[in-house]
């Protein structure tokens, strides 16, 4: 009886692990066809990673990994061929950019003509920060240095009258309350 439960437990553990592994491995099945896949899983994983970096030139906003276009398929096969031939990931990317230019890379490389793209947001952030700091400093300065105009003699007497009035008011109310 005990042995039966043991084996049941082990079996379900194996079953669960298999299920978990299967769902992990098979989750993103986009446009890559089974016949394109490499038998070596490590190599295939590299191919998938590279494919995600490469723009499908027909659809332009999809990676070749996602695209069903013929040219995307051809490029996926090409990427795998280069890997099998012993190219490093960088060499494969270079092979494709030699033919299609940097546009084929979904992540634009940092180069002289992409510097505005990469540095732009930080420049804007810096300018906004400087602007805010400058504005706040000036405002504080204004508040500190602003002097209120002196009261005229007439205003002074009116104010005094009001204050006196308030005083007598209090005095009157005091005892009656």
């Amino acid at each position, binding site marked *: 009886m005990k042995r039966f439960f043991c084996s049941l437990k082990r079996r379900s553990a194996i079953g669960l692990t298999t299920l978990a592994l299967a769902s992990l491995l098979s989750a993103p099945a986009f446009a890559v066809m089974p016949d394109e896949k490499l038998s070596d899983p490590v190599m295939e994983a590299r191919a998938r990673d590279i494919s995600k970096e490469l723009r499908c*030139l*027909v659809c*332009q906003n999809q990676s070749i990994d996602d695209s069903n276009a*013929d*040219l995307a398929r*051809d*490029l996926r096969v*090409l990427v795998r061929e280069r890997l099998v031939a012993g190219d490093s990931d960088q060499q494969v990317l270079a092979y494709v*950019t*030699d*033919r*299609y*230019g940097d*546009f084929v890379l979904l992540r634009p490389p940092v180069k002289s003509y992409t510097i505005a793209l990469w540095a732009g947001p930080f420049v804007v952030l810096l300018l906004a920060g400087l602007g805010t700091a400058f504005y706040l400093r000036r405002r504080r300065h204004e508040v500190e240095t602003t002097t209120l105009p002196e009261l005229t003699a007439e205003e002074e007497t009116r104010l005094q009258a009001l204050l006196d009035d308030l005083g007598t008011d209090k005095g009157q109310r005091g005892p009656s309350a």
Partner: protein
Amino acid sequence: MSPHTKHRLLLLLPFTIFLVLAAYFAIGLTGDPSKLPSNMINKPVPEFALPGLDGGPGLASTDLKGQVRLVNIFASWCAPCRVEHPLLVRLAREEGITIHGIAYKDKPVDSQAFLDSLGNPYTSVGSDRDGRVGINFGVYGVPETYVIDKEGRIRYRHVGPLMAYDMDEVILPMLRELAK
């Protein structure tokens, strides 16, 4: 600057932002996304040797030296290729321009039938069945037309069907210039 004028300038801010955005959109949205510069410009033609159609001569990169010429990438299954084809035929016959064809991902029988029915403007045709030579040229799709100079370098790429305007205004003047 009086507080009043400062206030006025602040009122102009949304309008300024609008102008800047409008300028960005005007540049960004009016360009043709298919008109991308080729990475192969001024580079030698990629090395290749393709078999011909129906026993005809094939096409190799070594054939593309010594003379200014066009390389046209076409396929029988491609509708825009049919549109530009009469123009290519006229160029070859009337202007005497050397045009080589690369049949991209097409069965040789189909490419041959295409040429039989529409006329053959090509000095020679290479059959690129798996599209590899196309990829080496940096092809996006068919048709594409490349201007090759005397040294066998790619000087210009035209994406999509050639129209009379492209021919008269761009390709022919360029061919004349390169032939000098």
